[in-house]
């Protein structure tokens, strides 16, 4: 599904990603963790076709980025830690707008369907600026899945959420991923990452320093492995 080889991304003279290799099979849920500034968001933005690689090959479902990013965007759903929503519009209007931009045909049917999945149906006609952070995040996920994408990219989705909202988000993530979708999620939160994902990759020094599948490690081991890899 995702194939990244030798990815280099530099901002001016500063290299952030230094020859990164990364692979995700269809249906996998991969969490990418790492210290601040490690390049998690950069990697995600490149996968989302929002940034161009300085060097290296990136392909999604066989489509080359950046050459075929137009086609790639059709199968991509992105949820950033910023909500990407218009505060002055209602949830319904926001979804309708993005639906039109993405060419989703059956909006009248699809919008209530999505709102149901993210459990925001009662707030359909409320202004987004009146939503709490947790609700905005859920609506953002709704926007992300509106066009039925095969691949979902989440950039630190738990940022700014209180524990209850974060738990609700986890349920949602598991449900959304469980429908055959491929998910890549970056996160600060090792524990949640370990619970949600089928694989955890540690990004450090501009590359994937270690990859651990679920079941390979005991719960506490992930933490100590993380510290060893990122400090060493």
């Amino acid at each position: 599904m995702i194939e990244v080889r030798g990815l280099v991304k530099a901002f001016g003279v500063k290299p952030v990603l230094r020859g990164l290799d990364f692979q995700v099979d269809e249906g996998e849920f991969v969490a990418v963790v790492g210290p601040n500034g490690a390049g998690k968001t950069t990697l995600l933005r490149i996968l989302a076709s929002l940034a161009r690689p300085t060097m290296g090959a990136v392909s999604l479902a066989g489509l080359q980025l950046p050459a075929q990013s137009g086609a790639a965007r059709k199968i991509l759903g992105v949820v950033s830690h910023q909500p990407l929503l218009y505060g002055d519009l209602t949830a319904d209007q926001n979804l309708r707008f993005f639906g039109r931009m993405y060419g989703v045909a059956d909006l009248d049917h699809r919008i209530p369907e999505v709102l149901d999945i993210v459990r925001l149906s009662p707030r359909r006609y409320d202004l987004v600026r009146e939503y709490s952070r947790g609700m905005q995040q859920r609506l953002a996920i709704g926007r992300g899945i509106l066009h039925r994408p095969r691949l979902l990219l989440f950039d630190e989705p738990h940022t700014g959420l209180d524990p209850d909202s974060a738990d609700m988000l986890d349920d949602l993530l598991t449900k959304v991923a469980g429908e055959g979708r491929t998910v890549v999620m970056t996160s600060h939160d090792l524990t949640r990452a370990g619970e949600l994902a089928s694989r955890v990759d540690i990004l450090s020094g501009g590359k994937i320093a270690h990859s651990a599948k679920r079941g390979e490690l005991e719960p506490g081991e992930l933490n100590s492995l993380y510290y060893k890899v990122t400090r060493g």
Partner: protein
Amino acid sequence: MAEEVGAVGRVGSKSAAGGYLRAVGAILWKDIAAEMRSRELLGSMLVFAFLVILIFNFALELDLRVRQTVTSGVLWVTFAFAGTLGLNRSMAIEKDRGCLDGLLLAPVDRSALYFGKVLSNLLFMLIVAAIILPLYSLLYNVNLFLPGLIGVIVLGSIGYVVVGTLLAAMAVQARTRDILLPILLFPVILPVLVAAVRATTGILQGLPLEDYQAWLNLLIAYDVIFLGVAIVSFDYIVEE
């Protein structure tokens, strides 16, 4: 609940052109809907325009005789300044909440984003003009309801917005965002202002068409040339 993963809009996006136009229309609709709710764009533009006219009144002593020659200049300076407010705000909305990313993720050609923004900026500018003109007429007892005048305002606004949207997309990403747009925009937009003011004066003074035809031609040429430049350049502004 099982859904068809991977099946994007089944009926709607039959043709690429249809998708393109739909995206442009969606952006226009979105800006109108948001503006109807908050009214911050139009509100600030109108208040500012009114203040500028007021200041001109005291600065220039617009007595009856002077008014004849100075009206078109005052109007266009007002539009130019109020316009930068609208342009800045319109782009800032997209940038601040990261909404620009949301737009960039849509599977449409990037120029659709540009056109959508140009259309909504143009609409707001024309709405401001539609309110300022009668206001000015009232305040200074000048008849501004001439059909040729509407045409000049449309042509001039198009040129202004075409270049302004492009430059605003850049300015909004700089640290010095607010002051930068006028500095970038005004030198480039000068031909539009000169031509629009001259053509407006010609119309107000009831001169025959051939007296100000050259200005109209200049406006049209400017609009066409910069539309071309903008379409090609916009991609480079939003890619990373």
